């Protein structure tokens, strides 16, 4: 169920400005308390959206991480990474 936890984190980035700020400045601390596996935690903090995509995380939800500059992502960085799934 922890893919669900990543979805919740993405939604929280959209909805909670305080959480969004913490995901921008210190994401490792911000996600303490979420039920993630070690690999999910690593992939999320690395902005490794390719791995997260293959784990079944919803691409649309991950877009919030890029839109709001979390985990080292920006729209151009996200774009390049997610497109590499196919290219």
């Amino acid at each position, binding site marked *: 169920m922890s893919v*669900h936890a990543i*979805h919740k984190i993405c*939604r929280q980035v*959209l*909805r909670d400005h305080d959480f969004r700020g913490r995901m921008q400045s210190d994401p490792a601390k911000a996600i303490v308390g979420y039920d993630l596996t070690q690999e999910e935690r690593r992939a999320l903090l690395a902005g490794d959206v390719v791995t997260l*995509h293959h784990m079944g995380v*919803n*691409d*649309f*939800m*991950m*877009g919030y991480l*890029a*839109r709001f500059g979390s985990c080292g992502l920006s*729209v*151009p960085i*996200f*774009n390049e990474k*997610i*497109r*590499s*799934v*196919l290219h």
Partner: protein
Amino acid sequence: MSEVAGVAKIVAAYGLPHTPFFPSRVVQEGPQSPTGLMFGQARDSLVAAKPDVILIFDTDHYNTFFFDNFPILAIGIDEKFSGPIDEPRGGMPVYSVPSMPKLAEYLHNHTVRTGYDVASLREFGCDHSVMVPLHFVNPGMRVPVIPFFISGHVPPLPSARRCFALGREIRKALEAYPENLRIVIIGTGSFSLEVFGPRIDPGKTDGVPDPEWVHELCRYLEAGDTDALIAAAAEDRMHAAGNVGGELLNWIAMLAFTDNRKPDFLIKQMENGHAYAGWRWG
């Protein structure tokens, strides 16, 4: 049936996009910009139809619903709802939209009792997918709106044929509703669009992976050939057209009201893989 005095009458139907940055684009580029003009044509037609209520078929983008509670079909029943609830871009106000709970409840009862397991929700908000088209075609949110949600993003999707049959059932109920109401139907969504998925264009947040699908659907719409459109709209075909390709289901539910008429206008918009269309008969 719709000619009987004192019975509700469906007078027009529209298919519209809901791209979240369109309101800010029109603020920047003005009402004479292409986007402003396309929505303007739909708005002028809708306003001329003098609706008392709008029913909009929509796919929520994980905001009204979430993965913890994810209905395939749902109807909003309340005096009003608000939105967008997904942090609107500049130029998009947050609205409170009046609704018609008595009519919504009637539709809920009718659809469930005729075999559609429709969830109901109260005290809800809607995201850009409902609010952007309303922003453009329902000036001042003066006309009450009932949102009807169809799951169109995450597999498994309801089938095209079932969504059309659902539209027919809603139509039957509306045409028997014992109040003298003029009703407009909207279906909103893209035909081919990928948002934040692997098939987005370089440097962008979206892309149109399957332009030929947009052309094909517009050919069916132009010809009033709803049967061919439904036959083509298999679930895997819609997913192949992009990760929001299932939003076509909202158009299909709306097409249950048009009786295979040719549209008054149909504007294909390849940049975003969608179209604007309108049918007004009443």
